[in-house]
């Protein structure tokens, strides 16, 4: 064979080999990429399902609590008002009948208020700051402990679902504090700039390094993660507990 022809054959074969190598590399990359795409889609689907499950659980919990509260209201408040209205309306005295009508008006107002709390539309209309204020007022009114709210404005850009989950997490944190810590004071700080909510109490505190038997803290952490936030807890025995909820941007 001529030297030039042999050089050409060599180039041809080497070029073909290189092209084959490149082709194999590209095919391998594409296959690997597709596999990862499928895995990623499955992961996203799982996170979505988990998120929907969390949301459903929270909605159920809130509705359950609302129903308990409605039952209590019907028995303790509206029931009493209805009895009083009946007594007054049965009277022959016109002033008593007028008082009875007043009671009926009050009952209508109370029932309207209760019906509003039965669906979750209130979550959209209420600001986070207002909700926290209401919750703290409720605790203070029971005389269980002192409460304090430090708010530098309200946190914006939260979807209804995010707000719902956040409201439930705050409620849970407050419930835990009342149930387990027996504090003298509970305070909440809302920082819209940092997008954080800090819940502190001066109660018993606990050792965070010891794994708890319940799933409360893990649940709260998971719920915050479900909305892209963070749940940080710091507690020392006898020195109270600080919970920092970091919200997504």
């Amino acid at each position, binding site marked *: 064979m001529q030297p030039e022809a042999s050089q050409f054959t060599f180039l041809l074969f080497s070029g073909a080999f290189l092209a084959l190598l490149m082709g194999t*590399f590209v095919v391998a990359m594409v296959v690997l990429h597709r596999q990862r795409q499928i895995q990623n889609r499955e992961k996203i689907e799982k996170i979505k399902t988990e998120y929907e499950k969390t949301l459903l659980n929270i909605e159920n919990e809130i509705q359950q609590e609302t129903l308990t509260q409605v039952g209590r209201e019907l028995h303790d408040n509206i029931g009493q008002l209805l009895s009083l209205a009946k007594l007054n309306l049965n009277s022959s005295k016109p002033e008593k009948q007028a008082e009875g009508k007043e009671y009926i008006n009050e009952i209508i107002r109370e029932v309207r208020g209760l019906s509003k709390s039965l669906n979750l539309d209130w979550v959209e209309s209420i600001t986070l700051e207002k909700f926290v204020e209401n919750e703290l007022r409720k605790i203070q009114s029971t005389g269980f402990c002192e409460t304090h709210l430090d708010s530098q404005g309200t946190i914006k850009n939260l979807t209804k679902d995010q707000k719902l989950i956040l409201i439930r997490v705050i409620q849970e944190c407050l419930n835990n504090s009342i149930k387990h810590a027996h504090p003298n004071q509970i305070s909440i700080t809302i920082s819209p700039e940092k997008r954080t909510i800090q819940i502190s109490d001066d109660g018993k505190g606990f050792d965070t390094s010891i794994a708890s038997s319940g799933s409360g803290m893990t649940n709260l952490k998971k719920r915050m993660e479900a909305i892209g936030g963070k749940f940080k807890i710091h507690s020392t025995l006898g020195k109270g507990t600080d919970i920092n909820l970091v919200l997504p941007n």
Partner: protein
Amino acid sequence: MFQEFFTKLNNNLYSQTLLVLGALVIFSFFFLPKEKKRRPEFFYLFLFVVLVYFYENFAIYMLVDKKSNAFFHSMISSTPFQGWNIWILNLFNYQISKALLLIYILQLIYSPLRKTILKGILFFFVGFCLILQVSGWYPLYNFQPPIYFFGNSALIFGSGLYFIDLITEEKHLEMDLIKNWNFWIITLILFQSALSFLADIAYDYLVFNDLDLYFFFNYISMVLYLLIFLTIGLYFFFEIRKEKNKTVRHAA
């Protein structure tokens, strides 16, 4: 002098193809919409094409215009001028174009860690080139094997980081890989760098023992360079067409 330049050009198929292809790519860049021209991936590719187009032709011209070449040589060295144009390839091909391609890969990577690693490599490469040249260990007018080695290794490593990013980062996983022009460009860059790397480290052996293989590395490397140009050109062309179709749809 210019006639000599064109005669040299006429004898070199690679340079001729590069001249035509390069001009088309540069020309097509100006038809891209403004916001795309400003996007780093397009802008760095354009800079790369302009740079290669410039130094390839400048290198041929310097072989013809010995007076200018001698003038440039006297600026970078006090050694006698031997008529070489290697300093152009050393500076533009082995240093600036490698750094530019590393920057191009860098802005395609999403992972902060991989970005930091690549930035580190880039700074180290630039520092390495400066130290070797300023200290006089490997002057610009002579062969610079450590810089060739480092430049090609950095590009191979950078491409590797990009491919890892491609199969791990969620943003990359959302796209169709086959339709992604950057993937094809970096694949070509990887193979071109790998071949240059092999040719450069085995230079001494190949020149004396297997000249065919040495030429093979060089030819294929040239073909890959042309393919990179072609892919960049097609990338620009399809982007222009996409934009045109969008305008037509809007008008309809």
